[in-house]
């Protein structure tokens, strides 16, 4: 068990820091299954990140004198139990409550696991393993979440966390790490943590909004969305070789990464069509930016700063509060934009139905079915297929109706894309703000 302990602990860290990215892909399914709204479903992410973000530093401070293996084991067990509770949740309120408990367990486990990895690998390698596990989790989370949701269900993303956690509890207990009582020597690294928070907010825009656009707006399956957003981790892998080739100073590397993320988000805001291919290049920019920034900033925030656990707490807090800030800014913007998009979408639908090459009776039948469907799916991008399937049409009129259905779907895709534009641009603005925190002149220290 001792030999497998460190890899299992690293995987657990990865799972916990991947959580938001994994859950993002399941949100459209949760939205439908728990019959809730986009605004409410965003709280499945916000609740977890808020509790983890605000709880990380106090947890790190309060457990400084405790046994890291006990803290880790308790944290992992709570996380696993809450994950199982999430999978069983039958309402959005229960799911959000379970997510809060899950985040509390996550906060305990993350700070404890850092000490265990340092115990196993030594200071430098241990911190690097903890940071890398987090970056890998963030980058690969959406793919894992999408595949699990597509193949099984949204509950699977929570169920799959349980066996890993069950194995990680004895692994954590097997590491004989003692509490490291270090004096409070260093202040938190404000600049890298602030940049990390702003970038997390921007990356939330990239993942959360893109997934909702792909699944809810463009009507792709979670599996297709997962495959599409896997461009981000693949591009992130290219970041290190590029940085090694050009050998920029750390600040320049982070600044270029922020600029790439901002550029990628602008690209996602203005696709020329709803073809998945148009998201690939902008996502590659985001992935490249992610690979150049997140691990570099996390290392900068923790490097040679003591007590280590507390500074790890600050980086966890910065990342997750950043996600909450991103969601808090973006959720009302895009839900309002989706609402505003209804009128132009309905007018476009009305225009196409009025001018459709169908008999008047067929137009009336389709219009009535569409009207009922739009009322039933109020607050979401509607799926019009049911309206066409149930409309009372003659068999010879079906081909023209199918053509009209495709034209109406295209209009909905256009309306959804337009509705998400401002949110992506706000995300780009957040990435540019992160860039500002990097390039802003430093305050000179008086001798």
């Amino acid at each position, binding site marked *: 068990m001792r030999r497998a302990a460190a890899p299992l602990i690293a995987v657990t860290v990865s799972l916990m820091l991947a959580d938001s990215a994994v859950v993002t892909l399941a949100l459209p399914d949760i939205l439908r299954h728990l019959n809730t709204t986009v605004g409410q479903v965003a709280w499945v992410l916000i609740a977890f990140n808020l509790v983890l973000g605000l709880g990380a530093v106090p947890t790190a401070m309060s457990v400084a004198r405790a046994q890291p293996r006990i803290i880790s084991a308790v944290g992992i067990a709570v996380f696993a139990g809450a994950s199982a509770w999430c999978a069983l949740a039958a309402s959005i309120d229960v799911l959000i409550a379970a997510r809060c408990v899950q985040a509390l367990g996550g906060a305990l486990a993350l700070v404890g696991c850092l000490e265990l990895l340092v115990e196993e690998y030594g200071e430098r390698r241990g911190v690097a393993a903890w940071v890398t596990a987090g970056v890998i989790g963030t980058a690969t989370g959406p793919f894992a979440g999408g595949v699990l949701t597509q193949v099984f269900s949204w509950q699977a993303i929570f169920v799959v966390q349980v066996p890993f956690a069950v194995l990680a509890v004895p692994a954590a207990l097997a590491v004989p790490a003692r509490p490291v009582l270090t004096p409070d020597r260093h202040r938190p690294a404000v600049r890298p943590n602030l940049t990390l928070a702003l970038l997390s907010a921007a990356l939330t825009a990239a993942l959360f909004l893109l997934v909702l656009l792909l699944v809810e707006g463009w009507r792709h399956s979670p599996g297709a969305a997962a495959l599409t957003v896997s461009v981000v981790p693949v591009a992130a892998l290219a970041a290190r070789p*590029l*940085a090694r080739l*050009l*050998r*920029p*100073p750390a600040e*320049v*590397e982070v*600044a*270029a*990464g922020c*600029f*790439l993320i*901002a*550029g*990628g988000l*602008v*690209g996602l805001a*203005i*696709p*020329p*069509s*709803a073809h998945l291919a*148009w998201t690939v*290049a*902008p996502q590659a*920019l985001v992935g*490249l930016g992610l690979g*150049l920034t997140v691990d570099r900033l996390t290392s900068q925030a923790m490097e040679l700063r003591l007590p280590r656990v507390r500074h790890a707490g600050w980086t966890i807090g910065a990342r997750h509060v950043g996600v909450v800030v991103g969601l808090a800014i973006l959720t009302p913007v895009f839900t309002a934009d989706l609402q505003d*998009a209804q009128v*132009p*979408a*309905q*007018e*476009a639908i*009305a*225009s*196409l139905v*009025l001018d459709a*090459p*169908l*008999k*008047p*009776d067929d137009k009336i039948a389709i*219009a009535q079915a569409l*009207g009922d469907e739009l009322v039933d799916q109020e607050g979401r991008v509607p799926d019009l297929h049911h309206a066409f399937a149930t409309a009372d049409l003659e068999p010879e009129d079906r081909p*023209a109706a199918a053509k009209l259905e495709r034209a109406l779907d295209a*209009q909905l895709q*256009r*309306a959804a*894309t*337009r509705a998400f534009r401002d949110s992506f641009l706000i995300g780009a603005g957040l990435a540019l703000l992160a860039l500002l925190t990097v390039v802003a002149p430093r305050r000179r220290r008086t001798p």
Partner: protein
Amino acid sequence: MTGLARMAGLPAVALILVSGVLGVELAHGGGTFEPLHPADPCVARKVTSQAEGMDALTERLVLLGLDGAACRLHLSREALTLKLAQPGDRTDAEIDALHDGLLAAVQRMKDDGSLPPASDLVDEALDNADLNGFLEAAIRALPDSVVNAAVKIDDVLTRTIDDLDLRTILANLDDEAGLTQQINAAVTQAVKDSLADRLRDLL
């Protein structure tokens, strides 16, 4: 690698990549992928129908009438359609605009020669009319030229529109049978009035 290359290399690569991606997107219409904008209802549009006979005439009349009404109300045709599809009271301005729009549609169809002659519609009209068998057979036996000389479609349509209670029709859009009954009654009355006036003019 020089200090300048290390400082400027990655930012230059980032700038080229971002400019390239955004440039390609904009060149392919990026930023303009938006829903269809409604056409100006005051600009005459070509209106066709897949139906035949009375249905085709009614559809074209309604579509052109909606355009005319929307133009008068300074709305798009689509916004007016969606508004009229909602339950609720109609304003006098809406009713007046719809009435005037339908009359303007009749005039436009008359001007562009797209109104069918009465003889094209007489069989269908008789099928829907509640006449005794003898009278129905007599009318069916009339030559087209006589029917067309006796009944002017534009006159019948104008009388029908004037006679229709648009407010009641809009309030009962879901009641298809009632709607048909009301329109048939208005058309029959309009034909009778038109014929009576023609006879009066002849005498």
